[in-house]
């Protein structure tokens, strides 16, 4: 049996690296005293895995991890305990049991939703124009840094949806993640700025992670009972 924990990552906690996050959550689960399953061997650790790593420094409203739980795991009680034991900045949204037979969490991720907040700018017409233009493009070349050097690729197939909330000055983007290639929201945001001819600071927040059934996408909560 597995449980899925959905939590936020914000404030100073956004600077916790992925490796350190595993350690931090391991300790939080130990403190909670809920019945979780340990690996065997000389260095036992809690059997858990995260859905999709988040870049150090990025805030997220919904991170997911799955953890193998034991017989004594009572979801109502455990949920409360886990919420209380997670440290500041890692606020638990919910704890639910995972559907039997569902794929591994990590293998279920297909899209990631982001909010790009424009700071100190109200030149929103330009942003609106740039987004429209990008959505009408057949191809959008972006360049990313990899260990082997710069690599160019087409971002259009990796954009699931892209909208501009003109009233709030926020861009909402759902981008391909894990399953069919990953698009870094910052690469897209930089491109939007370039097309708009703007040089404005922005903050990216991860809003949610999605799984795909056919052509439809659902938040990962769809994998829970």
């Amino acid at each position, binding site marked *: 049996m597995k449980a899925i924990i959905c939590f936020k990552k914000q*404030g*100073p*906690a956004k*600077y*916790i*690296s992925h*490796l*350190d996050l595993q*350690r*931090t959550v*391991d*300790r*939080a*689960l*130990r*403190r909670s005293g809920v019945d979780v399953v*340990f690996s065997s061997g*000389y*260095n*036992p*650790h809690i059997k858990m895995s995260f859905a999709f790593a988040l870049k*150090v*420094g990025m805030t997220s409203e919904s991170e997911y991890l799955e953890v193998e739980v034991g017989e004594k795991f009572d979801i109502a009680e455990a949920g409360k305990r886990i919420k209380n*034991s997670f*440290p*500041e*900045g890692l606020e638990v949204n919910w704890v639910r049991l995972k559907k039997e037979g569902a794929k591994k969490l990590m293998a279920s991720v297909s899209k990631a939703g982001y909010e790009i907040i424009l700071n100190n700018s109200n030149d929103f017409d330009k942003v609106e124009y740039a987004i429209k233009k990008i959505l009408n493009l057949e191809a959008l070349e972006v360049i990313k840094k990899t260990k082997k050097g710069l690599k160019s690729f087409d971002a259009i197939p990796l954009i699931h949806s892209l909208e501009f909330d003109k009233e709030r000055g926020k861009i909402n983007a759902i981008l391909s993640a894990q399953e069919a290639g990953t698009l870094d929201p910052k690469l897209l945001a930089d491109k939007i700025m370039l097309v708009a001819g703007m040089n404005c600071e922005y903050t990216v927040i991860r809003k949610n992670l999605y799984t795909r059934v056919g052509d439809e996408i659902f938040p990962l909560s769809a994998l829970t009972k």
Partner: protein
Amino acid sequence: MIVTEKIEKFLPDVEKPARYTGGELNMTKKDLDLIDIRFAFCFPDVYEVGMSFLGLNILYKLLNERNDTFAERVFSPWPDMEDKMIENKVPLFSLETHSTMDEFDILGFNISYEMCYTNIVRALNLASISPLYSERKEDDPIIIAGGSAIYNPEPIADFFDAIFIGEGEESLNAFIDLYKDNQKKGYSKENFLEKAASLDGVYIPSFYHPTYSKKGYSLEKTNDKAKEKITKTIIEDFDNAYFPLDPIVPFLGIVHDRITLEIFRGCTRGCRFCQAGFTYRPIREKKSETLTEQAKIIEQATGYDEVSLCSLSTSDYSEIGELINGLMDEFEDKRVSVSLPSLRLDTVFKDYSKRLDSVRKSGLTFAPEAGSQRLRDIINKNITDEDLFKTMEQVFSKGYTQVKLYFMIGLPFETYEDLDGIVELVKEVKSIYGIAGKNNQRKLTLTISASNFVPKPFTPFQWIAQDSIEILTEKQNYLKEKLKMKGVRFNWHDAELSFLEAVFARGDRRLSKVILEAVESGAKFDSWREYFDFSIYSKAFEKVGIDPAQYANRVFSKDETLFWDHIDCGVNKEFLAGELEKSKTGILSPDCREICLGCGLEEVCFKK
């Protein structure tokens, strides 16, 4: 909060940003409007090292027990962060509230090794506060220091308003009471320091004036409130001593990322090179039930998966069996492991180790220190080749495949025959593995680590000259050549670094100019290989006009006044001199649990 906004812009670009954010589990938070005194614990090294340091964790939580005081933490920013801070005009700041140093009443520096001295100056520079007390203004914070490497405070005495000798738990509280009273009454800094001078273990450097002449060195009192001798403070009831039960749990992996239980203070072995062995006296133990109880509470408050026992010689703890059994009973089901550092060769495999066998089979570390019986007798390391071989046989037959052996080179009266002794020992250990370890799945990995002897104050070898850098390097090269064997890895310490350690360990106040000069030329994080640059120091010594060899490579005469003679660490000088005499003919001193040797601490020492 301006700091928070400013660093937010460049934190994503520095290495390990979690070093600078604070906000960890169990961090203390207080309402600044409700407190009287703001105290900053400054650790002159990077976060991961500072947070691993038990003393800092104890004092941080201890001071925060006070309703009138808020103690925060400050660490040296790693050079990438320091550059960004300078570039963006961000001064040194605390982790708890991101406050700058001018907002604090007292800055307390922890000094746990000599090679952090330049980082003290860098920290104050980054705070735009003069490192010299003589140049500081009335409204600058009071800057104090304490820690295990401050028994000879002279090289850094010019930097501090007050220095704490010994275990600061009680004297620090008294100091803060006094400060609070002084603030209320609006008295001057000078007036406050005069009163503080009467507190146990508190040394006010500005109340003394050194003179250096052909006749020798002397330190004159310049204020009649100054004490003749500053006697280290000792916590007598160690079992009931304050110990934090909710230590901060860093987000970041740190050096000692686990529950650390301090099982006892002091050591009864009396190895003649070991400063801690003398300055931490007398021996004081905690009861095993106290420790088990503390571990239980800490585990619940932190979620750590490992408990480590901390002391100078773990296997000398009189209730070690009960303690390990108690901890294993408590933690086995919770998958919390128990680890034992610093084991002695003659006591490792007593009954209790049987339970540990079921837990881990990683590496083991032992410290024979010297290669021959003659030299081991000189340094009073009471172990024999037999002890080592017997232990190795047991260790290997239990399945261990990685062993690390610590040696020290450049020890007093050492010859090349003693170095050959190390080589012979290594050969023997290898052949023992061939028999006792023949069924093991892996080949033996034997790591031989050689540090360089550094003469330290308050040890019998405090008068001894250190081998020159050239001689130490020759000895290292000799061993390097001879230890080119299959399965043997040889590590050695930087001779130049050990030389500087000796200079500062036995130095005087004139060295503060060298430290300032070195910082001007870019010295930082000297205990980190990637930043240590000996040439900076060579030039600094030259510029200031000081010959460093007179501190490191000179035999100090029994008749001369030592630069640390005004400090009393409890063990008297005659005893140390006697131990030095005994060493010359290789006469051993027994463990002082067996026979009291009269070191000077008889009155506070534990009674059998």
